[in-house]
């Protein structure tokens, strides 16, 4: 639901921003899907198509100086946090102009300038990084918060419990966001996890909310309420967002483990478009947005293709700093 208190114009402008971000993430990943299939993107990529509303909704309540730690499925987090399209595509296309100079790739996209502390190849690792970042925010009295995104597969990792305990104990300004897509890599999450997050949160004294992760406004509203309290020093909070993973665990995953009759969640774009329609924004306006985003994405891909490839020699200087002494 659009927030109460904001005026109608603000609400519409925010809804349009949400829609544009959702569509940007979607188009980027659809293009990556093709680029990967055509062999232009090397390595492993994990797409978040169907889950975009969580990235966009949560990030709408954050500033550039708030920090996030992401996952292996981190494209949406990176883009919604403000990573530039050109640096993003250049990274995935293994270019020297990539955000990580072509050394990290999809699983390690990071942009410290917008507080994006990295996608991560290790399930659950972002939990402790975000907890530490929250500690820094607290000690610096910056008013900033940290957000850790993780999937329901990460609920089986010990770090969740260690970090939940530390964060609650130290009242750290951190929001934990579980993107519950029902899958723990190749296995149904309900066959991996023996507890639910509502009970878990209660055990640790962590404020908990559940939101429809396919509804950007529902996510944004829940995130905003929780983040307000987190920023006010009330300690950690957890937002569980139910959603669907439309693609495989990774691109190229044959997904023979998935049942034929699996019910896919609502399309976050259609949900957002319906809100816009209620505000009088029609198909034509959405097509204009779509055309503009397509052009931006294609321009970023073209720039990445034209950029020099990742450079081997430069890597040695970034293993560690050799002291002048």
């Amino acid at each position, binding site marked *: 639901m659009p927030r109460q208190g904001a005026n109608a114009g603000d609400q519409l402008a925010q809804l349009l921003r949400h829609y544009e971000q959702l569509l940007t993430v979607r188009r980027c990943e659809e293009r990556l899907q093709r680029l990967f299939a055509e062999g232009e993107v090397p390595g492993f990529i994990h797409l978040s198509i169907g889950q975009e509303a969580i990235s966009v909704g949560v990030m709408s309540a954050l500033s550039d100086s708030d920090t996030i730690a992401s996952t292996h499925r981190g494209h949406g987090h990176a883009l919604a946090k403000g990573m530039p399209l050109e640096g993003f595509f250049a990274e995935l296309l293994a270019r020297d102009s990539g955000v990580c100079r072509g050394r*990290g790739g999809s699983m390690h996209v*990071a942009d410290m300038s917008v507080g994006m502390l990295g996608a991560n190849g*290790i399930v659950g690792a972002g939990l402790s*990084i975000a907890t530490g970042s929250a500690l820094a925010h607290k000690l610096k009295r910056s008013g900033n918060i940290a957000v850790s995104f993780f999937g329901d597969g990460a609920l089986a990792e010990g770090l969740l419990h260690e*970090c939940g305990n530390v964060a609650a104990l130290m009242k750290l300004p951190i929001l934990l966001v579980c993107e519950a897509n029902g899958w723990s890599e190749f296995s149904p999450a309900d066959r991996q996890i023996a507890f639910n997050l509502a009970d878990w949160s209660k055990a640790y004294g962590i404020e908990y909310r559940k939101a429809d992760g396919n509804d950007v406004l529902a996510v944004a509203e829940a995130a905003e309420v929780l983040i307000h309290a987190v920023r006010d020093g009330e300690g950690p909070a957890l937002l569980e967002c139910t959603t669907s993973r439309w693609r495989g665990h990774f691109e190229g995953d044959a997904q023979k483990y998935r049942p034929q009759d699996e019910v896919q969640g609502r399309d976050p774009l259609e949900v957002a478009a319906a809100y816009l329609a209620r505000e009088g924004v029609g198909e034509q306006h959405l097509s204009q947005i779509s055309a503009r985003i397509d052009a931006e994405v294609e321009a970023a891909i073209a720039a990445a293709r034209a950029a020099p490839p990742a450079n081997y020699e430069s890597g040695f200087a*970034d293993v*560690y700093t050799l002291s002048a002494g």
Partner: protein
Amino acid sequence: MADLRYGAAISQALTDAMAEDPSVIVMGEDIGGAGGSFGITRGLLDKFGPERVIDTPISEAAIAGMAVGAAMSGLKPVLEIMFMDFVTLTMDALVNQAAKARFMFGGQGSVPMVLRTPHGGGLSAGPQHSQCLEAWFAHVPGLKVVCPSGPANAYGLLRSAIADPDPVVFIEHKGLYAKKGPVPDVLTVIPLGQAATLRQGDRVTVVSYGAAVALALAAAGQMADEGVSVEVIDLQTIQPWDETVVLASLAKTGHLVIVHEAVEAFGVGAEITARMADIGFAHLSGPIIRVGAPFMPVPFAAELEARYRPSVERVVTAIRKTLGKE
């Protein structure tokens, strides 16, 4: 010159670093109120308060990861892991996160954290409280590994480690904490990556680090009585290690012995041996001999542990062996 205990020198380095730079924090299990298992952080809580001297729960994986995240967000955390054996629980944070960040993120930043931890035996602490695991970290691109042998370089190297922009594993020896040694009147910073030649000699080079340096020096003294001049090099920093100083010494002596408390197999001595066999081959007049622990976990029984750990006698034997004097 004054005398200072090794542990006190480390405490002083922490105190001075915290006084100088408000972004330095120390964190770990029982380091605040309790002052640390070995008393190294005693007094810091009173001086700097609970925000900068953080007692954490027994959650090594989380606190190591938190040090990474805090370092990415503007702090300089110095994390104490109570015994080096417990670093097994911190490995993801160190190896996959801290070590990779500078490279993997294209040089956008790094992780200026220090993990302090004591290694080594001699206390009958048994297989899970005595290990020397430095070779693991020296093998991972992105981590620096430091291992001081006495109070003066413990102070100087820890100051450099804390000031360093990258993650540093700072390894102390629990058997040294109570030992006194000479320190300059004004404690000085010692750059990372530089070895120190503690004794000049021209027949055999003995390279060591940490507590084993004392064995090398004692063996050198004993050999001097027999008319054999031994040069003793304290590596100080294991990664990156000072290949230049070791090579120059080998060029002079033609004989190399490496002494450390860690298991010999696949260890720091193995790396130095391989490297010198490569770039120093022309200088070698005898086999390179390693003196370290055998391929066995650290035993509990005092007699067994005494046999297990390197000794002056074993260093002397190795020196004789490389000289063909067996």
